[in-house]
């Protein structure tokens, strides 16, 4: 219990922030930061721990977002149930797509997921009867005033973030986590010592998609409007990838730290320069430098230092 106290205090503080008279801008800033952190952590479960680098995770975000939008718009289901259903839908979807793709190694997996992200956007643009095509879906407006609305979403994203952090923390110390790391380091060896690699990879893939689906599900109601280019935006995958790489893949706190740094930068540049493309220019630049000079990421680097000191 005593070990938990230094952890609980910051979490408590995060819960108290919206109750303080802070400007709405900061609540908005934080909840979007949580969203990107959830995406990065979800991506990290597959890429960081299992070593299967996916470039199409926006697809799961989009599936979650559309599940929420369709369920709310057509059936009037409550948004917080639908976001969980969105996560489950993304997870089921991941199992379908994982079956043919998870057998692929290295670059082949990356290539397939890269085109898969684009294909989903086309699919949802064309299935007009279900998704509304390019017009998108407008969700019913929330009954609350704007501040209550943002605070509710602040908590929803915060709780989801804590959930994914806890899951990753538990994963790292579980048999499953060990198996995944083993697959990452040497899949052939993992298989030969009796790890059911296919099942393990599938679990990691579905778990990873689950959190992106939840985050997408929450986002679509938060934005109250969803269309294929935003739901399946390659930027969602891109942000998750760069944040995890910078913070350190295969660590619990890495993606969060990456998200804090990069999201702050992206918001800063968005308000400072009005030119499009500058935030992604910085993101990709950071990613290139990190891959070349610090591939283990910030947390990985700090951890190495720790180990070195006897």
């Amino acid at each position, binding site marked *: 219990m005593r070990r938990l106290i230094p952890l609980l205090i910051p979490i408590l503080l995060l819960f108290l922030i919206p109750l303080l008279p802070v400007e709405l801008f900061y609540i908005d800033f934080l909840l979007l930061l949580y969203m990107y952190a959830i995406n990065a952590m979800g991506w990290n479960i597959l890429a960081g721990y299992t070593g299967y*680098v996916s*470039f199409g995770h926006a697809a799961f975000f989009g599936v979650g977002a559309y599940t929420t939008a369709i369920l709310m718009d057509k059936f009037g289901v409550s948004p917080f149930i639908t976001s969980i259903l969105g996560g489950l839908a993304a997870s089921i979807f991941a199992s379908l797509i994982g079956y*043919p*793709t998870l057998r*692929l*190694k*290295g*670059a*082949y997996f*990356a*290539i*397939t997921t*890269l*085109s*898969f992200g*684009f*294909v989903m956007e*086309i*699919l949802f*643009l*064309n299935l007009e009867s279900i998704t509304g095509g390019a017009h998108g879906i407008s969700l019913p407006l929330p009954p609350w005033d704007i501040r209550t609305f943002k605070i509710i979403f602040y908590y929803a994203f915060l709780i989801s973030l804590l959930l994914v952090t806890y899951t990753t923390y538990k994963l790292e110390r579980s048999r499953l986590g060990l198996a995944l790391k083993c697959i990452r380091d040497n899949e052939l060896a993992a298989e030969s010592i009796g790890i059911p690699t296919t099942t393990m990879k599938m679990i990691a893939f579905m778990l990873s998609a689950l959190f992106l689906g939840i985050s997408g599900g929450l986002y679509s109601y938060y934005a109250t409007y969803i269309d294929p280019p935003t739901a399946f935006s*390659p930027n969602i995958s*891109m942000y998750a*990838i*760069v944040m995890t*790489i910078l913070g350190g893949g295969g660590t619990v706190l890495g993606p969060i730290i990456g998200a804090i740094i990069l999201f702050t930068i992206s918001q800063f540049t968005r308000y400072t320069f009005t*030119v*499009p*493309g*500058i935030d*992604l*220019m910085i*993101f*990709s*630049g950071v*990613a*290139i430098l990190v*891959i*070349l000079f610090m*591939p283990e990421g910030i947390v990985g680097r700090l951890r190495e230092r720790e180990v070195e000191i006897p």
Partner: protein
Amino acid sequence: MFTIFLQSLATGILIGGVYALMASGLSLIFGVMDIANAAHASFAVLSAYIVYWFYVKYGVNPILGSIFSIVLLFIIGVALYRFVVSRVSELMAFTLLFMISMFMENTMVFTWTNLYRRIVIKALSRSFEICGVYLPLDRLVAFAIAIGAVGLLAYILKYTYFGKAVRATMQNIEAASLMGIDVKRIYIITFGLGIVLAGIAGVMLGIIYPFYPAVAASWIGLLFAIVVFGGLGSLTGTLLASLILGVANSLVSTYYSSSWAPMIAFLVLIITLWIRPSGLFGRILR
């Protein structure tokens, strides 16, 4: 009715030739050094932009502009491999090159905006009619240049010492280096050569299609589908796969809807990897 089919077929074949040129560079790099160049299409777009700006701003002849662009891209490719890509593992190289493509794309948006551009050459804006099938001159020229360049590449690979060294490296790195081939040098030149091929194809595509920085993202999936479907390291396979996919895209666009066309490439990619990972002509099974 039949004329529409023929027209669609002709369009598909003509565009397929240009795909083949772009994909052959990707296939060469992938086959020789096991690196999937995620930035391949971005180099094509860059090359189209270089030629476009020289042509529009300074009235430089597109042929001269292309030569300049090719030399520049070769230097960029060689330097990129020598100083950047060779520092990381093959697996990490994909992520790295993907980030480089993102960087290039957004730098191009930043400097040249998102507007649609097209290299319009007056002398080429005519078309021939054969049995009701229209063949635009610009596409014919692009097809001819593309096939010519692929043929030249095939000749280099087959009959020159460099080509022999490249093929040896592709088959077995250790044996090749034991035979006195400077594998590192082969890698560097191959990378530059692959990017040059992308550059030539980029100019061709810039002549027949409008382009903008983000267009690279829609090509790269198709290119990887072609390379995998054709079989790694097989030029014949790449050529055949390009023509098949070009025709398939064209037929789907004609009879169904052009918005579905990118699905074809994805389905071909998935099905090939599922059923026959070595592709049509690939020898290496992974």
